[in-house]
């Protein structure tokens, strides 16, 4: 059968789906340490010694549960960065342009993806030293965004 519609009907839809996600024991510890003490913790695998942030209950490489908590410094090295120019108000936490980066904290073996701040895109270079800037204690609520962003170490790009 050949159907040739005279008009194409289009429906508007939006799925609103609330969730209550459990962070789990490992991330709950990480998030409460971030909220209460502005500290970043990783997990070290007792077998392969690799230090992961975000922390994992088990080592993803050797899959052992024999992992220990390691407090990481809130400073490290910029691995890569991206400057966001497109606008998507339904998604974005702030008006573009803003910057994402992956920072490998000193001692960690993996990088943490987060925002970069207090720096112009043109001043950024992979490999530069960065430090974390946290929300004020009274504003912290146990979310990853209690860490506001990483900025060039010392507060300005050298």
């Amino acid at each position: 059968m050949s159907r040739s519609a005279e008009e194409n009907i289009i429906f508007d839809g939006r799925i609103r789906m609330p969730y209550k996600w459990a962070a789990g024991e490992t991330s709950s510890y990480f998030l409460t340490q971030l909220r209460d003490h502005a500290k970043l913790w990783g997990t070290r695998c007792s077998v392969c010694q690799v230090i992961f942030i975000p922390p994992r209950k088990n080592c993803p490489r050797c899959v052992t549960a024999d992992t220990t908590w390691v407090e990481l410094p809130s400073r490290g090295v910029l691995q890569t960065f991206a400057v966001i120019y497109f606008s998507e108000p339904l998604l974005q936490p702030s008006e573009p342009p803003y910057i994402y980066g992956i920072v490998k904290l000193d001692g960690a073996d993996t990088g943490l993806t987060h925002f970069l701040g207090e720096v112009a895109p043109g001043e950024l270079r992979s490999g530069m030293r960065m430090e974390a800037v946290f929300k004020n204690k009274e504003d912290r609520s146990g979310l990853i965004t209690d860490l506001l962003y990483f900025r060039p170490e010392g507060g300005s790009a050298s």
Partner: protein
Amino acid sequence: MTDIAIVGMAQTPYRRRRDDANFAELIYGVTCEALDDAGLEIGDIDNFITVSNDFWDGRTISSMAVQDACGSSFDGGRNVSTVEGDGTFGLLYGMMRILSGAYQTTLVVVHCKGSEGNMRLITNGMFDYIYTRPLGIEATGAAALQARRYMDKYKLTEEDFAHVSIKNRGNALRNPNAQLAETLSLDQVMASKPIASPLKLHDISPISDGAAAVVLAHRNVANKLGRKPVWVKGIAHCSEAHFLGDRDLAEAPALRDAAFRAYQMAGIEDPFAEIDLVELYDAYSYMEPLWFEELGFCPKGKGAELIRLGATAFDGPLPVNPSGGVLSAHAVLVAGLARVIEASLQIRGEAGERQVEGPVELALAHGINGPCGQSHCVVILGE
């Protein structure tokens, strides 16, 4: 070498928006065309794989939206199973079901309408909800992190990547199914709007609607059909870590591994010399050299130079994405199966205006899934 062949195939044209058809109507079209192409009827198909994504379709168990249309309800219902990932993974799954010995034929269908949802919200949804998703990062922001890392590590430039867009959008001029076909200059690409720097508008694949279907058959059936089967000579897939920061984004060890095993299965020792044509998943311009290198065609960091020198041009010694690639049409999920179909058409010599010079005896098709090519599927196709 496997006992499985592609015996029928079809794809829709890829367009920014198809207001005239819903998912099922797209699937019905490619189902009929693929069966015609194979010279089979729906009753000859004893197993079905539907490939779709719930977030894109806006419903759970999205595969159910197309069961009537792909014929899996025929004659009281046949075995149907679902893959939520790239179409190449659906192909692999379909093959495995035939190889289980339970089925002789399988129809793999895939659909996606990128136009109907919000691409940025949907791809943000692929990240974990504790550490990454709250940052608002999505596919293109993540890809920009990968592009920068790749540039920094191997001393590449945005101009290097621009040559990929120029080549592939130019190739698309020969492909009536492509959505973006245009002659671009280096200046045009470089001056295009910054989206997620270092990525600019012309470095990024479009949002597309489309569907595709492939009929797979066991050797017992394939050899009895009228037309030349396209054999799956090798296939492998591999996945790496989910967190972006766990990976060195300038490397794709999962692709290296998948390629190695697919080459082993196909008996390939020197891919550049032995493979005649490549269709790979260039969702962003930088991905083409990155994947090309990890597929073992050249040393790491040298892919861009080969592209600039024309080695992968339409009339080069190893054409890569003569169809225009994903940069010219990106119906997500469909795009990997489209690579398989394009490579298969070239082997048959039926690629029309986009048929490359000289015989295509062995071709490679590639699909990805997840942020920054987290998982890869490599398919070696041949006569």
